[in-house]
């Protein structure tokens, strides 16, 4: 187990810079998820930590030692690939023991370690099979077994679940999490799926276009997103946004482009008048009868019942607003309804920078 420190790390391919000086501190035993849309540089960053990609600038330290120029085998890391990357001509046992075999570990010891890893992952019955005789989930497990057998200082996962079907993905998510709780090995996990990030991480790093947008625990990111991008990226269904202006004063209000007015919470007392974006999560929007005081009138577009809850997607002026309701709604598309926002839960984002606007207490 070890800490991983990424300081001011840059990556460029010729004149194109894809990673612009990233700093991340990963503590011993921590489960860190790098998340972001495709092309944000998350896999490149992981591959730089692994040593598969050269580091153009900055430093990567594993267990306090700078590893910029160390080949992967000296970094004591194990990696699980998106496509599993199992050796097709080797049995499951050989696949898992290959790294130990290269280290010239005695055969008996290899067998023991492979056996133990197979027990952890429930692969005992499959040890003599070839990868082509396994299902997708089993292959993924073998790929994880290959990493576990080595007992490395750091596990690296590169979108390991994206080739599995939805149900298996949820199951494997829990298994990886449980495995981490059991082994407590420092883990860096890359995904584009924010649900995976939210459910698995101790700490999430949100990346966009080679920059870190925010680092924090899943609920930190959810409750206090640093900017509009993080607010929109984290959380499903995504946060609703309304463009408009803030009218400051003793009782600040937000006025949308078509005059829709939302009262702002008391934390915004004293804010200056300015153009801004209002953000509110779907679970903080409730459907009320038209004309309820303080509500806004919207038109129902689609109703999506999922059983446990109902998503009501509406049009409010130029914006699309989603409300999540625990109650079953009998609504027709085209019908007018009232929307009421839970005032303390609304976010404001500065116009231009898209940073979240906050009034720091005492100012």
């Amino acid at each position: 187990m070890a800490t991983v420190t990424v300081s001011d790390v840059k990556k460029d391919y010729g004149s194109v810079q894809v990673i612009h000086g990233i700093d991340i501190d990963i503590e011993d035993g921590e489960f860190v998820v790098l998340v972001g849309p495709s092309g944000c540089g998350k896999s490149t960053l992981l591959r730089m930590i692994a040593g598969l990609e050269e580091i153009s600038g900055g430093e990567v330290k594993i267990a306090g030692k700078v590893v910029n120029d160390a080949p992967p085998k000296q970094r004591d890391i194990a990696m699980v690939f998106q496509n599993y990357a199992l050796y097709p001509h080797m049995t499951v046992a050989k696949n898992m023991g290959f790294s130990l075999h290269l280290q010239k570990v005695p055969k008996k010891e290899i067998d023991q370690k492979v056996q133990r890893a197979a027990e952890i992952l429930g692969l005992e019955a499959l040890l003599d099979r070839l990868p082509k005789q396994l299902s997708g989930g089993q292959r993924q497990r073998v790929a994880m077994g290959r990493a576990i057998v080595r007992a490395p200082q750091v596990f690296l996962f590169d979108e390991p679940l994206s080739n599995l079907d939805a149900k298996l993905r949820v199951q494997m998510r829990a298994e990886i999490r449980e495995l981490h709780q059991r082994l407590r090995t420092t883990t860096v996990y890359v995904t584009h799926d924010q649900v995976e990030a939210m459910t698995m991480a101790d700490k999430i790093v949100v990346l966009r276009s080679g920059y870190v947008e925010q680092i924090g625990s899943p609920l930190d990111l959810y409750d206090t997103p640093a900017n509009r991008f993080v607010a929109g990226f984290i959380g499903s269904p995504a946060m609703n946004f309304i463009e408009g202006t803030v009218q400051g004063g003793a009782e600040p209000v937000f006025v949308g482009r078509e005059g829709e007015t939302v009262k702002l919470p008391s934390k915004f007392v004293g804010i200056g008048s300015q153009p801004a974006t209002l953000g509110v999560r779907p679970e903080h929007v409730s459907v009320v009868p038209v004309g309820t005081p303080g509500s806004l009138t919207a038109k129902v577009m689609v109703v999506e019942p999922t059983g446990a809850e109902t998503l009501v997607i509406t049009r409010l002026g130029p914006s699309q607003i989603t409300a999540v309701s625990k109650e079953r709604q009998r609504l027709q598309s085209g019908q007018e309804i009232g929307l009421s926002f839970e005032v303390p839960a609304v976010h404001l984002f500065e116009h231009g920078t898209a940073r979240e606007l906050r009034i720091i207490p005492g100012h």
Partner: protein
Amino acid sequence: MAIKNNSGRIWLALPLLVLLIISVVPFLWMAVSSLKSLRQLYSVPPQWLPDPATFSNYSKVLFESNIPRYFLNSTIISVGSTALALCFAIFAAYGFARFNFKGKVWAQSFVLVGQMLPTATIIVPLYFVLSYFKLINTYLGLILVYLVLTLPLSVWMLTGYFKSIPRELEEAAIIDGASRLSILFKINLPLIVPGIVAVVLYSFVATWNEFVFALAFATDRSMKTLPIGLAEFSSEVDTDWGAIMAASFIMTVPIALIFLALQRLFVGGVMSGATKG
């Protein structure tokens, strides 16, 4: 529906049948003729089956001609040049498939230049080079000359096979701590066995049957190869067809055996299960 299906099958079977006849009949004719006496061979109308069958052609070829020696020469030269071609081709192809270096495209195209020149045009330069190194009438000389013939295509074939192996497999091996050579020998080579078989067959058959270079560079009786040996049965005054047929049959046997032995390895599917997507 059934009728339509059947007529479809006929259209598939007919060309296959024609192809089969074209490729098998000469072989059968050779085998049958090798058992006929000279008189039966020249009989008009042709006598289809040998009656009585005679092994005199074989005994003449095996005990009264230089064919056994030529057979040995051919074997040494073909095995040697195939092995050498395979060695060089594996490393060159792996380099072309996996590394980026200056002048790669240029080098890759230039490998094929030798292949594009008509054989006759390179005989004289090759003769000069070989005689400078005193390699005329040596095994090594012919082995090296045959590399010129077989290496380019072998490199190209193997490059394709190496490229078909997903990069992630190599990266997984790098993470597992494998060196470049272990990756090549423990991960890649087992996965391109069909490619290696193809190269071995191609290279062996090409050198086994080669005539022009052998004629030019192996003039000594002790160095000649089988194709030259076959030609020796035919002189200006007469041609011993029976002996030629028997020698041809003997020459064909090793090739047939190699094909039979390696046929199973031609079957693909080694890669399945490595990755998904």
